[in-house]
């Protein structure tokens, strides 16, 4: 009886929403057919016709490029180190927030918090699992397993550093230490394998991470500079922003690749990847500056007046009152710009010949056993999935950040 009631409910729903008029019915049938056909084609490509062995065979090339076999252990240690660092940072920040009363200490059970992490990270987790299933050696499994354990340990240890009262010396030690870990790991890897031998998706991630970290402070300085009362500072910042925004990124990358040698002696020209990072940083900083300037203008005048009236100096007015509000107001645009930067790292492959993911995907279709078989569809789909996973995760995390920072504002 329940079933019939349910079925008639579904029929009523279908009639109301899909077949209300003859035109509705026709549209439903046409788009239904197109959707079904697309789903069928996609599924058959993924599960039947797709030649995914090209990914399986070249997985390592796709992920880390031609990184020398002998030094892969350094990458493994780096991944594990970064996982521990990330876990530690999460635990540390959480403990600081609890300490300052911004986040309630109790009330959320362990299960609820694990569920929360699951909701946040299920997509990258699924993709990592997919990659692991494609790999033919135990190395990646061991790496990911150890990284997970390291992250958990870091998360458990982090609060011990975050909970106690940190004096100026203590906070300096913690912040320098936290900054030193990724930098140290970078040097650990780069001293063994020169930057130009890095490749694959790892290179995309690394280029983007460096440029994101560097372009952010530069963008803030440029935005503040453009609003400065000092004419020279204002002119310099405005000129820089307008010049850089006026040139296509691709052209700037080509310039950095080809033309730099005309102006600078060869011995002073940094490696290709370093030049790419510099170009990405300088380019994105100009855009970030304008986004942040928009945020600065969105802060009401009354806020600055109140900050002045309580006696804050101009630097503190900006640092404590104006900038925090300005940056929060433009989170969506900022993250959009950073996602764009991440995807633009593929341009460095074409303009500078870096062996990043997109270049790898085209290169492997020319391998002897795959040549001339039209497998570009498989490789490009793989690249798209990788980029989409990271971009989508960035986007979701930014929404979360926005919500958390918006406490009590709206």
């Amino acid at each position, binding site marked *: 009886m329940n079933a019939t009631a349910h079925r008639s409910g579904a029929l009523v729903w279908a009639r109301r929403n899909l077949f209300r008029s003859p035109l509705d019915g026709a549209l439903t049938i046409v788009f239904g057919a197109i959707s079904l056909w697309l789903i069928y084609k996609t599924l058959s490509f993924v599960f039947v016709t797709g030649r995914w062995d090209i990914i399986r065979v070249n997985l390592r090339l796709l992920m880390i490029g031609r990184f020398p076999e002998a030094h892969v252990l350094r990458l493994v240690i780096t991944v594990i180190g970064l996982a521990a660092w990330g876990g530690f940072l999460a635990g540390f920040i959480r403990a600081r927030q609890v300490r300052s009363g911004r986040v309630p200490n109790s009330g959320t059970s362990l299960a609820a918090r694990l569920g929360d992490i699951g909701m946040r990270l299920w997509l990258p987790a699924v993709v990592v699992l997919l990659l692991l299933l494609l790999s033919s050696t135990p190395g990646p499994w061991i790496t990911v397993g150890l990284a997970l354990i390291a992250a958990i340990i870091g998360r458990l240890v982090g609060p011990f550093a975050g909970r106690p009262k940190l004096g100026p010396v203590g906070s300096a030690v913690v912040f320098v230490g936290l900054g030193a870990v990724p930098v140290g790991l970078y040097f650990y890897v780069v001293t063994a394998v020169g930057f130009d031998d890095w490749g694959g998706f790892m290179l995309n991630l690394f280029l983007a991470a460096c440029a994101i970290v560097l372009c952010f402070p530069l963008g803030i300085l440029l935005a503040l500079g453009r609003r400065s009362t000092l004419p020279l500072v204002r002119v310099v910042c405005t000129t820089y922003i307008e010049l850089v925004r006026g040139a296509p990124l691709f052209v700037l990358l080509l310039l950095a690749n080809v033309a730099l040698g005309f102006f600078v002696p060869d011995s002073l020209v940094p490696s290709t990847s370093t030049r790419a990072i510099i170009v990405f940083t300088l380019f994105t900083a100009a855009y970030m500056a304008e986004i942040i300037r928009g945020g600065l203008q969105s802060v009401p005048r009354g806020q600055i*007046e*109140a900050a*002045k009236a*309580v*006696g*804050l100096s101009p630097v503190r007015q900006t640092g404590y009152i104006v900038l925090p509000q300005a940056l929060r107001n433009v989170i969506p645009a900022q993250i959009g710009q950073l996602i764009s930067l991440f995807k633009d790292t593929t341009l460095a492959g074409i303009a500078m010949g870096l062996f990043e993911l997109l270049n790898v995907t085209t290169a492997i279709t020319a391998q002897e056993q795959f040549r001339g078989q039209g497998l570009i569809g498989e490789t490009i789909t793989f690249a798209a999935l990788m980029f989409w996973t990271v971009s989508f995760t960035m986007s979701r995390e930014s929404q979360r950040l926005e919500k958390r920072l918006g406490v*009590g504002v709206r």
Partner: protein
Amino acid sequence: MTEPEVFADATEMRGTGTAMIELEHVDKLFGDFQALTDINLKVAAQEVVVVIGPSGSGKSTMIRCINRLEEHDAGRIVVDGTVLSNDIRNIQEIRRETGMVFQSFNLFPHLSVLDNVTLAPRKVRKMPKAKADELGMELLEMVRIPEQASKYPGQLSGGQQQRVAIARSLAMKPKVMLFDEPTSALDPEMIGEVLDTMKELARSGMTMIVVTHEMGFAREVADRVVFMADGQIVEVGTPEHFFENPREDRTKLFLSQIL
């Protein structure tokens, strides 16, 4: 306009007799518009001066000149012996001694109520956090909302926000408090709670200049009432004289319009 008529018993400052704020021949221009013309006013320590007048008469501009939210174009402003000049350190010194409460509260929306109150003592006076928190809670108790300390301004009613704003100003232990139409943006039922807080403050001996349309407050609390129109001080007097026996036609007209 004739020379401002001043009541004999109101010429001199009330209170302790030493001038906390002095404005001498102050002019202020917004482009071609003369917002203030030859403003002369002395406010004694512990005195409460209420400034009234029609909108656009320069009341807000006058008190905003005292802590340099507006820059005056001519004349001299002295706060507690410090002459206001273009030197930023000088301006900072005067702002530290001067609290200001705004019509639109202007609380910092990204900081908790307690942090709103303690930010300036911590960053400007270099007070340790624990001590600043203690001071902050004391002040929040004074304005009767200690239970809201960990909330954010957006979660409070207008009246509560304005009381937090008063606590925030007091946290710097100012010698002077400036109020710029503190109840004009409030719903009627919340005006009372803010005025009560201000009355307590006046009773505690704070030197106050209050721009307001609350005539009841002026009558009850003011030592002197200043009436401004068209950027000039038209009349100064005690509340009794002012409300019952105003001298100037302009004042009479204004009072007949609002009372």
